[in-house]
């Protein structure tokens, strides 16, 4: 019981860290055609995430791997049910990853344009589809007692699912624009600030709409009503979102980014807390839902994995913070002159 509950929340935490870190990479990649007016701007945008995106993406691998290890049945049903959506995400991530590496390798405008488009598609698609997928999980997925999915890709594109997709895209756009305010100077910096100011009110409206829609489309609030203390998760999330606006108006950009990071973690936990103990609820019948208790690994595996995670995740966080620290500061023309720069 205890082990499975710990693992349930660790599972949520890993996804939350993935959204918080790779989220701003997705945001920058989506803003890329709109804010990057010149080639110099574009290169600053890519190099702003250049040293970090790869390490950020591993949180996805780890979140996926931990789902496999701790809740094999969830891994198997979730990934096969969401087959088409997941394949689209994977292809998008492939395109994004190679685009960074390939874009600067041939000096030809058409070549660069091709990879520019791939950066946009490869960043926008995962942002949207992760939102769609998670909103559908909050809502419940049509799986039967054998874990067989009764639907198609289009089943996922229902109003609540799409609202979740839009919410994720907006969260990541604001998160990415804020990262760019930290990493850029001059006109590009101004454009990034203005993007945050324009996107923030829309994000606020969509967040409120999502919180209200969740009342009607999901059973997430049952846990909150049973234990009102959990409403603090929603409160913190909303406060963090308001904090973004506050800090950006004070021109304290790092604090604004941090508030945005907290908003994303909060938004993820809004769903995770509401879901507990369901990991993959069935919309056909609650008895078919996969939970932390009916879908977990053996206690031995859960224990071994817990030891591994307790030993290594703090180390990972340690060297990732070191990497962030090493590459803090604005990207300058001087940085772009290095032959290794993207």
């Amino acid at each position: 019981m205890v082990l499975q509950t710990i693992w349930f929340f660790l599972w949520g935490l890993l996804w939350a860290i993935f959204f918080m870190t790779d989220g701003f990479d997705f945001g920058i990649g989506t803003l890329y055609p709109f804010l990057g007016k010149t080639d110099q701007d574009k290169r600053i945008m890519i190099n702003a995430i250049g040293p970090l995106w790869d390490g950020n993406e591993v949180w996805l691998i780890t979140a996926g791997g931990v789902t496999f290890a701790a809740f094999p049945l969830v891994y198997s049903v979730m990934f096969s049910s969401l087959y088409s959506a997941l394949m689209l995400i994977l292809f998008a991530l492939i395109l994004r990853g190679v685009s960074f590496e390939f874009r600067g390798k041939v000096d030809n405008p058409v070549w660069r344009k091709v990879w520019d488009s791939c950066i946009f598609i490869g960043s926008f698609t995962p942002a949207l589809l992760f939102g769609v997928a998670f909103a559908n999980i909050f809502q419940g997925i049509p799986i039967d007692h054998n874990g067989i999915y009764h639907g198609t890709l289009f089943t996922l594109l229902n109003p609540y699912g799409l609202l979740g997709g839009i919410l994720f895209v907006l969260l990541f756009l604001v998160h990415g624009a804020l990262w760019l305010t930290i990493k850029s100077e001059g006109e590009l910096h101004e454009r990034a600030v203005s993007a945050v100011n324009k996107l923030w009110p829309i994000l606020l409206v969509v967040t409120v709409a999502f919180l209200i829609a969740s009342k009607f489309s999901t059973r997430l609030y049952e846990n909150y009503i049973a234990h009102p203390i959990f409403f603090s998760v929603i409160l913190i999330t909303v406060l963090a979102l308001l904090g973004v606006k506050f800090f950006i108006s004070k021109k304290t950009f790092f604090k604004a980014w941090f508030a945005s990071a907290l908003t994303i973690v909060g938004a993820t936990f809004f769903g995770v807390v509401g879901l507990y103990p369901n990991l993959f609820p069935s919309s056909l019948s609650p008895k078919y839902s996969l939970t932390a208790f009916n879908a977990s690994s053996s206690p031995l595996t859960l224990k071994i994995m817990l030891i591994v995670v307790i030993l290594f995740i703090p180390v990972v966080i340690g060297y990732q913070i070191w990497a962030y620290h090493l590459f803090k500061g604005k990207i300058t023309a001087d940085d772009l002159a290095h032959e290794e720069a993207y």
Partner: protein
Amino acid sequence: MLMDVVLLSRLQFAAATMFHFLFVPFTLGLSFLVAYMETQYVKTGDETYLRMTKFWGKLFLINFALGVVTGITLEFQFGTNWSRYSAYVGDIFGSLLAIEATTSFFLESTLIGIWIFGWKKLSKKAHATVMWLVAIASTFSAVWILIANAWMQNPVGFTIREGRAELVDFAAVLFQKYAIFKFLHTVSAAYVLSAFFVMGVSAYHLLKKQNIDFFKRSFRIALVFGTIFSVIVVVVGDINGVIVAEKQPTKLAAMESLWETTTRAPVYLFALPDEENEKNSIEIGALPGMLSFLVFHDIDAEVQGLNAFPKDERPPVLITSFAFKGMVGLGFYFILATVLGWLKRDRLVESPMYLKLMLLSIPLPYLACELGWVVAEVGRQPWIVYGLMKTSDAVSPIATSQVLTSLIAFILVYGLLGVTGFYLIAKNARKGPEVETGS
């Protein structure tokens, strides 16, 4: 009638894995070579070593990007396409993949960013250390992945409970002989591949008499590395054969195209299996007792033939045996090519024939590595976990059209990526190091 989900999923997984493995061995081997070159630069201050680090490093990075992005899809395909397998063995197999990500892949991916962008931010020594850590982390990635694969070949340390395989002895899974020798064989092959790549590209420039000192030194480093591991890969491969004979007799019989159980079992230099009639239609150059001797160290030992097993438990014999013989032949060729290298080492520039040979040999270790995986994976059929679960029972309950669509997408996207990636690698390899020096 469309092809079924099992076949399509197998084709997709094969395409995805084989494509991924075009890049993995190069990463495993070249990371160590680049780390060594950079360390030499730090130690001696010789600028040529710095240029070597940057030149080979650039090729390393293009390859690395392709390796990383194609690896991600593999982890997720166990869930998307092999969900019954994932549910059945996730308790063991899933944890190995999760440990790989947590302990190794994180380190490798975070540090590679630091290495690329950190030339001015870190001391020379720290920067070189980062590459060593990338190399070590990549090696540990291989350790975990190959332990997981070894468990599919020879499942140990588990019990069947509530309709699935559950872990009972973690140490047995980690330290089984199959895993240890599979690891040694695979990484040695990877080192041979990267050494032949460096020797081949160096040979190209030496043929053109460009940057002679630079490429002679590169060749020399790769030659040492390549010689050691071409020998090790064959020696360890031989031990692997012994282990396969013990743990997977159907695979061994298919590798050697041996139909009848017999003492003094032969090795055929060439055999064309006829699976329909359960015999070889052509057998050339039988070495009597050789197989018995190789796998049991006794020429009179009895080796089980394919006919000792039910037809539905035998792997495809033709593919397995041809892939095996191709791999072994190439393995001996690599030893020969490196030995020749030692004979020619002081007059490389004057040996255009040898240089051409080495240039043309670049693709051969790639082929050998792929053939090795064909032996391992096709030879394990019809099992996905040997003796425990059949591949046909492991597939996801999904629509054929979904798999067909994604398979086509894989072929298109990977095809384009492969062409682009190898074009960039070839382009940069031909261009040579940044600043020319006289020879």
